[in-house]
């Protein structure tokens, strides 16, 4: 029997589960696919319920991880296979090399010397990064990552000379022994390329809500000023398109739970930054569960924030201004609206990260990619791997999963 617990996914839910289990004395392996912990929360400007920046919350969690010898944190790591049974699982984990030294040496100068500019996935391609990068704010671990596939010959020459770089590092696979598994693999934004009637991501000023978070974030590509990607000018009129791919049989049939709140929050970003600006939110139903209703009331009390019942079903780029013409029917008035906005934000929904991927373990998955069951086999899913949730509820489900995992490895 192993008393160890494996947590897959180093986002807010996974970190919470790992800490809860480790702090009562269990050995925990935290496996994260990306180079850094923090997951989607790291990409947000502010998050609910208190509208704090991600540093508030995540930084404390990172400290707790750092100080807790019970947690082994594996980044750039993926679970390849799982065998065994509850209480005794053998898990093969593939770890990609980071190619940089263990010490947290500052490689920013070296990175700047590299030739290629690569679209930055963390910034949703609103900016670029170098092949040697540490693109997240307050990164944990505080180490640069080298992306060897994006180097040319001169880059290689520069890098081989540097003592903190290991160009020949090898990928390795390790085997972990654990008694229970917590799956906190989180979500990805629904791919806008599928939203053909909403520009499919090809119109510069028709962005996604996650891109908006990066534009508004002080650590983001514009240092926090919300400007139009096409010309870096401040937008005067901003539209939010709700249910962009959610509650739609042709895309994600379920409600992604948080996009209405995200748009209301982002409306506040815009209104705070530009007092003259006007915001219109096009919705099917504004879903503001529980106490979030109060937040919704507060934002909508602003006379420059308008909510229109009617889904936007067509957008078109204005050739002169690169604004976006939006067509919707105001279902309350019964008339169609055609209006030009400087910036349009698509409130794209959450798709589980595992959707469409082969699962390395024996756990159920519904037709949308959310995990089901697994409890009887000591496998517990957390947060958005199971259902669309906000950060607070993800953290709660992390705690609950930790409790169940502990019960599995220790018996009741």
């Amino acid at each position, binding site marked *: 029997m192993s008393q160890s617990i494996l947590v897959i996914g180093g986002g807010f839910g996974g970190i919470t589960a790992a800490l809860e289990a480790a702090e009562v004395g269990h050995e925990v392996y935290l496996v994260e696919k990306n180079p850094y912990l923090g997951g989607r929360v790291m990409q947000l400007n502010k998050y609910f319920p208190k509208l704090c920046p991600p540093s508030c919350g995540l930084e404390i969690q990172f400290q707790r991880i750092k100080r807790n010898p019970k947690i082994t944190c594996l980044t750039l790591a993926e679970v390849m296979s799982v065998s065994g049974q509850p209480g005794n699982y053998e898990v093969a984990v593939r770890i990609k090399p980071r190619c940089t030294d263990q010490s947290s040496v500052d490689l920013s100068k070296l990175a700047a010397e590299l030739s290629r500019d690569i679209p930055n996935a963390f910034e949703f391609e609103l900016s670029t990064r170098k092949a040697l990068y540490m693109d997240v704010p307050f990164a944990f671990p505080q180490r640069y990552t080298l992306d060897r596939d994006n180097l040319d010959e001169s880059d290689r020459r520069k890098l081989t000379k540097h003592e903190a770089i290991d160009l020949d590092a090898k990928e390795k696979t390790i085997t972990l022994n654990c008694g229970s598994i917590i799956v906190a693999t989180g979500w990805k934004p629904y791919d806008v390329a599928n939203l053909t009637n909403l520009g499919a991501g090809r119109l510069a000023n028709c962005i996604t809500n996650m891109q908006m978070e990066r534009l508004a974030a002080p650590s983001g590509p514009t240092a926090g000023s919300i400007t139009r990607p096409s010309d870096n000018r401040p937008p005067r009129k901003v539209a939010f398109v709700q249910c962009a791919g959610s*509650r739609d*049989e*042709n895309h994600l049939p379920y409600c992604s739970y948080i996009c209405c709140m995200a748009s209301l929050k982002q409306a506040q970003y815009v209104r705070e930054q530009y007092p003259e600006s006007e915001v219109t939110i096009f919705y099917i139903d504004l879903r503001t569960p529980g106490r979030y209703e109060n937040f919704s009331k507060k934002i909508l009390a602003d006379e420059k924030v308008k909510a229109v019942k009617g*889904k936007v079903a067509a957008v078109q780029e204005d050739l002169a201004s690169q604004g976006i013409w939006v067509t919707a*029917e*105001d*279902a309350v008035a*019964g008339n*169609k609206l055609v209006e030009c906005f400087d910036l349009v934000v698509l409130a794209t929904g959450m798709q589980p990260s595992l959707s469409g991927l082969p699962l390395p373990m024996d756990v159920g998955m519904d037709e949308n990619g959310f995990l089901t069951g697994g409890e009887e086999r000591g496998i517990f899913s957390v947060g958005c791997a199971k259902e669309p949730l906000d950060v607070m509820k993800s953290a709660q489900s992390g705690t609950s999963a930790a409790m169940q995992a502990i019960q599995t490895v220790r018996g009741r």
Partner: protein
Amino acid sequence: MSEPLRIQPNLEFVQELQAIGGQDLKKCYQCATCSVVCPLSPMDRSFPRKEMVWAQWGLKDRLVNDIDMWLCHKCGQCSEQCPRGAKPGELMSALRNMAYRNLMGPKFIGEWMSSIKHLPKLIAIPAIIYLLVWFVTGSLQGTPFPLEHGKIEFGLIFPGDYTIDPVFVLVFFFAVYTFIRGIGKLYQGFDTQPKTFVLGYHPPENIWVSLYQVLKEEVVTHKKWKDCGEEEPEDTKFKGHLVLFYSFIALAVVTGIVAFTHWGGKVLPFLHMPYPMALWNPVKILANIGAIGLFVGLIYLTKRRVAPSEKDESSYYDWYLIVLIWVVAVTGMLSQIFRIAEVAGLAYSVYYLHLVSVFMLIAYTPWSKLGHLVYRIAALTYARRHGRLSTEIETDKNKVYVI
């Protein structure tokens, strides 16, 4: 709204709608995607979102008097992009089907035309009439398949002057009379509905100018069909309908000429044309071009209907009409072929079937999908007159303000 309005849902009506094609209407959550993606929906009081909510609420008065069902040409965009699979396009055609059934009496015809189980009765009426005729004339001739100078002569069994023309003229005017009353009833219904006050639009000065504009700008060109989309399968549908439409016109012209020369020939002998016509006769050529066109159009339209489509389902009304036109076209062509090939038994039998099917096509038109020929044109005429414009219409003044 200063006074609360108490709506009175007609649940029976909702169930009726669900039964004839609107079965998914309750899935709608009013996101209004349909009204936006519809290429024909006007800017004000757009459809089909409002029809969906009326249908859910069971607002029968609104729905049966709704002009917009006739503005819809069912491209299926709304059903395709509907996030809920509520199929607004099917509701619009269900409303039209309901109009075919209920708009005009006698009630039993509408009822019989609405379901395949009543089809035998509809066939029986002309079938019995012409079977009796065949029996009588056959007895007089001494054979059911008589020949004149060795040639097949349909007039021997079904003499036109006594058994075809009087019946068909009667039936034709019955249909025309029904249509005229139908248009009146349709317009009365439209009048009860709220209107839009449109600035800057100069409506045609009277209904006849409006009709002329509809015929010239929409019917002849099939412009609305093009607006519905020019990609497959809309293109197949557009071509099929266009060819079928002009073939019908060609055949109507032929029928008109034949009737005119025949009956006119009795008064003014120089109008008389020998019958059957020679194959090189221009009227005969037009008839055969029409017949071939009929087949081409039918093949296009049938191909599309047979292809499984989520966004455009076929109802009994669709199948009734398309199959009937097939029967008319096939029996018409075959009776000509068998006559020329001198296969008497087959020629007379097929000709008999042809008469039965043509009778059905004409007599039951106001209650069939073919009724749209009249009702749709009438509705479009009304729409133009009252400034109910689709997004695409450009007026001579360029700008139209809708209040």
